[in-house]
């Protein structure tokens, strides 16, 4: 019985820990908030995959331009 009480007390303390309010995160400005949001955002890999397929239709003459650009 005593052991059961102990368990109950333990589980109650776990519940208490979970229900404790989280510390607030503060952002100094909207710029900072949006930068944080941007950092959490990942680019879906599907875009590059689609782009790769779409770009195969581009004519070689046009594709030659970026070679000149970065040579």
């Amino acid at each position: 019985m005593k052991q059961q009480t102990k368990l109950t007390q333990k589980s109650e303390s776990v519940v208490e820990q979970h229900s404790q309010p989280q510390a607030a995160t503060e952002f100094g400005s909207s710029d900072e908030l949006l930068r944080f949001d941007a950092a959490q955002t990942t680019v879906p890999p599907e875009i590059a995959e689609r782009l790769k397929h779409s770009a195969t239709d581009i004519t070689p003459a046009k594709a030659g331009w970026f070679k000149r650009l970065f040579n």
Partner: protein
Amino acid sequence: MNEPVERESVTGKTPAGGLASGFAAIYDEHSHAIFYLALRYLGDPEKAQDATHDVFLKAFRKLDQFRGDASVRTWLYRIAINHCQNLCQSWHNRNVHSNADDSVWENSAAKTDSPLRVLETKELGQRIQKALDAVSDEYRLLLLLVADEELSYEEIATLVGQTGDAVRGKLHRARKAFAAHFEKTV
């Protein structure tokens, strides 16, 4: 002012590796900025994916028109802004916001220098989107552009077709309006 790009840096090793290496490097460097702008400007992940794809495909096709008098990033932003604005105009599914709506929030108690407190970061993206949707298209665009630390005020001014001073003034009001709307999303 052009950005130097190592042609061989990403060949065959990136998701965009199937593209010619120079353009793959451009995609790798700037796709995050363009996708984030599209995501928060349009407010829809699927539309943002489509828009990012279309923007880079357009850039790929138009590389012969890139004169190099702006940075590649600014040039891509220009294409992205035009693309997103055209989409918004054609959809007609976004609520129309007027500057009168913004003025209510510009005169509110919210201050641009007050810290924004967040208890739960899990749904932060949704709150940010709600606040961005609540401000005008012009303010939303300015807020998103200034969040990119690689852009100068002058570059932002060029992108939105206004003077640097006008951009600074509008940004002050945009931040205030955003902060007021953000506080309301709790």
